[in-house]
């Protein structure tokens, strides 16, 4: 039950985009077409669902203070939390490489349309953010997996909704200065207002 709550929270209440404004770069850049956004959203879900639990295991068994106790009593006092950033990033980068290879093999069309943004998932702040939030909130392994999946799905819904809006806006007579990114920023803000409906819900 707790895991389900975390998934729902990740999608609607603690949405990575609209509640924390993390992962904006790919959110703004890869949302011109629904099909591409759909692919990137799926890739983010996939990467998050894998990296968050993997990072959890590493954090619990190696990085946390006293977690090296399994190696012997001499290691009981070692605290490697200062390594969190670098280790988490390394794990994420490795897994993104894996995803890239899989997508290239399975769907070359999607691989082509995602372009540079697929490797850029590695530095997507939403991914590292999730890993750090997971540590901060003291999740268990199951909860961490649910959290990864939930926040990935939140990103997925946000980006396909934005892409659908932008496809529709192709036919609009937008003021010159706002064409492209300017208007997208405005839409993101307005979507944020709409998503505010869920902030404050206690599950």
């Amino acid at each position, binding site marked *: 039950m707790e895991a389900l709550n975390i998934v729902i929270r990740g999608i609607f209440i603690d949405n990575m985009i609209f509640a924390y404004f993390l992962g904006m770069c790919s959110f703004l850049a890869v949302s011109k077409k629904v099909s591409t956004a759909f692919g990137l959203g799926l890739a983010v879900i996939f990467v998050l669902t894998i990296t968050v639990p993997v990072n959890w295991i590493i954090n619990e068994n190696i990085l946390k203070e006293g977690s090296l106790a399994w190696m012997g009593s001499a290691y009981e006092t070692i605290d490697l939390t200062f390594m969190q950033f670098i280790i988490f990033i390394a794990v994420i980068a490795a897994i993104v490489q894996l995803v890239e290879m899989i997508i290239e093999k399975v769907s070359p069309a999607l691989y082509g349309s995602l372009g540079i943004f697929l490797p850029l998932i590695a530095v997507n702040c939403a991914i590292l953010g999730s890993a750090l939030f997971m540590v901060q909130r003291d999740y268990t392994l199951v909860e961490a997996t649910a959290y990864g999946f939930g926040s990935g799905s939140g990103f997925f819904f946000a980006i396909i909704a934005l892409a659908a809006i932008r496809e529709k806006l192709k036919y*609009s007579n937008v*003021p010159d200065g706002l064409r492209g990114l300017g208007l997208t920023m405005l839409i993101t803000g307005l979507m944020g*207002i709409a998503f505010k409906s*869920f*902030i*404050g819900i206690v599950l």
Partner: protein
Amino acid sequence: MKFLREILDKQKPLFEKGGKFEKFYYLFEAQDTFMFSPNTTANNKGVQIRDAVDLKRMMITVVIAMLPCLFFGIWNVGKQHALSTGQELDLMAQILIGLKVVLPIVIVAYVAGGLVEVVFVVIRRHPLNEGYLVSGMLIPLVMPPTIPLWQVALASIFAVVIAKEAFGGTGMNVLNVALTARAFLYFAYPTNISGDVWTYFGDSTPADGFSGATALSLGAATTTGESSGELVAQLNQSGFSFMDMMLGYIPGSIGETSTIMCLIGALILVGTGVGSWKIIVSVFGGAYFMGIIFNLIGANDFMLLPAHYHWVIGGLAFGAVFMATDPVTAAQTEKGKWIYGFLIGVLTVLIRIFNPAYPEGIMLAILFMNVFAPLIDYYVVGANKKRRLKRATV
């Protein structure tokens, strides 16, 4: 009418390219078309049937459909004023008080938003549309009667600039303009648009025993454990019987209290084909469906509220009839309209019951579904394509 036409024709060269007032061409065009559009007139000889419905006619129809809500709202503001301050006022006095409160709000909303629109028309040189006649009327109807006028002006300007003109003007916006205005105030100045603001007091002080609670705040109180007991009984005790809420003798935003008046508006909209009955029906259906589900769960007293109460409480009827049916921001495919409306109803009841921070869910539910409407359309169209491709035998 002929001499009017002649006067306008005489002025026309002044406003056309190279004329003296070239800049103001679209202002001229606006008043020209306001009176003479569509300018196809039936032939004198023989019988023709011509359907001349266009954007302007549609917008005027919506404004007419809103009038019952406006008139009732004006009277209700006065009535609630009399009730809460314990004065004995006759009908005329109540209406006068209502006029004194409501008219300035309507005028400010029209003037502030309208001026911004005119500036955009002149600078960007696009035609002036009647769209703002509707938004400018909707904004006052969803405001509490005690709202400061400068906030009405600010919200109207914000909504017109950010939610509409930035997207290219009428017909291009993603979010409903009037709801954006309200949401803007809701998050920017929460103390002026939530809590104890639903009754106009003026110079008088509230009578003894006046609580200032609304039906929704009573409901929300049961979810947070502040009060308990059967909600229907509580509502009846505080003057929110089903009939009262249906007719609208309750405090609330200016135009939304009366479900009956909203339904009259719905009849006008659906009868003239301006509003989509599918959306209206599915919003009510979605709310009822969710109400029944919560009845079955029944974890607190608000969940046990009979499902049809959700129809008359708060602004659900007003939102369903006038906001959700906005043809620009709603889903545009027929199947999409069912999904869109149903989800609005479901979300509204969800937010009401789960989110004590926002007692009323319809505003945010509609905004939320506005955001997802293009996506619904995208997938409905996609599914249709797939279905037809399957049928093709090439």
